[in-house]
């Protein structure tokens, strides 16, 4: 296993470490320190951006405030199209946080020169290229849509599992497991695949040639953030949807 993970490390610039982590020991747990550091940087960037944007709020926005208002409008529209006019407001913060965190993680992983920071083992990269991050985000989504459904309909939410016909019950139950699974694997796989492809190309041809693929990577990572947020919003919307006759949304 060790030999395989070091196959790509023969070049000086083209380093890639899969399955190697910078472990911190916390009680009985071994945690992946590099992921934590990268996520803290992402969180700090987001916090600083929002503080700068809201520190001196103007009626006519300019600069940072303008940009953040644009982002907020985009996220609000995204949530509204998935959840519906009536209920979407309460869910904008959740969906927006998911989108911003994933987006800034993905782009940060691609744009910030993490290689300048030397770690004893493992390397800094996008927090989303660790399966634990994406599973955590996906499970949060699961919790959110269960909460949405249960708080809206009470235990009647589970009655909806048998909605068109009772035959659907096992499929709906399986779906509850496959939703977080596919959400987390999709994001993790895409980000890791981008980094692998770029690393392999840099290993083969260190100059210029990888640039188009890096740009493609930026594009796909933005799309992945959009997809994650859209799907989370649509699961929440689906959980709150009324199946009992009254189609007056």
């Amino acid at each position, binding site marked *: *296993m060790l030999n*395989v*993970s070091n196959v790509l490390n023969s070049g000086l610039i083209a380093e890639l470490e*899969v*399955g190697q982590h910078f472990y911190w020991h916390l009680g009985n747990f071994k945690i992946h320190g590099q992921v934590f550091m990268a996520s803290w940087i992402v969180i700090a960037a987001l916090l600083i951006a929002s503080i700068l944007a809201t520190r001196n709020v103007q009626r006519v926005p300019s600069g940072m405030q303008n940009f953040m208002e644009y982002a907020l409008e985009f996220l609000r529209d995204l949530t509204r199209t998935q959840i519906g006019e009536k209920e979407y407001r309460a869910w904008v913060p959740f969906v927006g946080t998911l989108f911003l965190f994933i987006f800034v993680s993905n782009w940060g992983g691609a744009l910030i020169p993490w290689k300048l920071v030397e770690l004893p083992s493992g390397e800094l990269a996008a927090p989303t290229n660790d399966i634990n991050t994406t599973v955590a985000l996906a499970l949060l989504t699961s919790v959110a849509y269960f909460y949405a459904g249960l708080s809206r309909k009470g235990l009647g939410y589970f009655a909806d599992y048998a909605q068109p016909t009772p035959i659907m019950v096992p499929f709906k139950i399986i779906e509850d497991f496959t939703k977080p699974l*596919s959400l987390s*694997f*999709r994001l*993790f*796989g*895409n980000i*890791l*695949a981008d980094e*692998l492809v770029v690393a392999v190309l840099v290993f083969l041809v260190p100059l210029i040639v990888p640039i188009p693929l890096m740009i493609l990577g930026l594009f*796909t990572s933005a*799309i*992945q953030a*959009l*997809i994650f947020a*859209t799907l989370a919003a649509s699961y929440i919307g689906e959980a709150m949807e009324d199946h009992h006759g009254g189609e007056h949304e």
Partner: protein
Amino acid sequence: MDPLVSAASVLAAALAVGLGAIGPGIGQGNAAGQAVEGIARQPEAEGKIRGTLLLSLAFMEALTIYGLVVALVLLFANPFS
């Protein structure tokens, strides 16, 4: 690692990505073709079609990515080694 296991893992990883790329490839081709047709018929709807197309392409791409995740697990975190 047992050489037989590593040989089988490498082969399986190749097959996981290779076979996993076939289906989404066909699907993406279909989707893109239909989108082009739609744009040709109704050029003013281009923006909307492009957005929907990109989203659905990413969904199809995810299927190959699942294969890739399996391949990566076999190569870098092999449970049988």
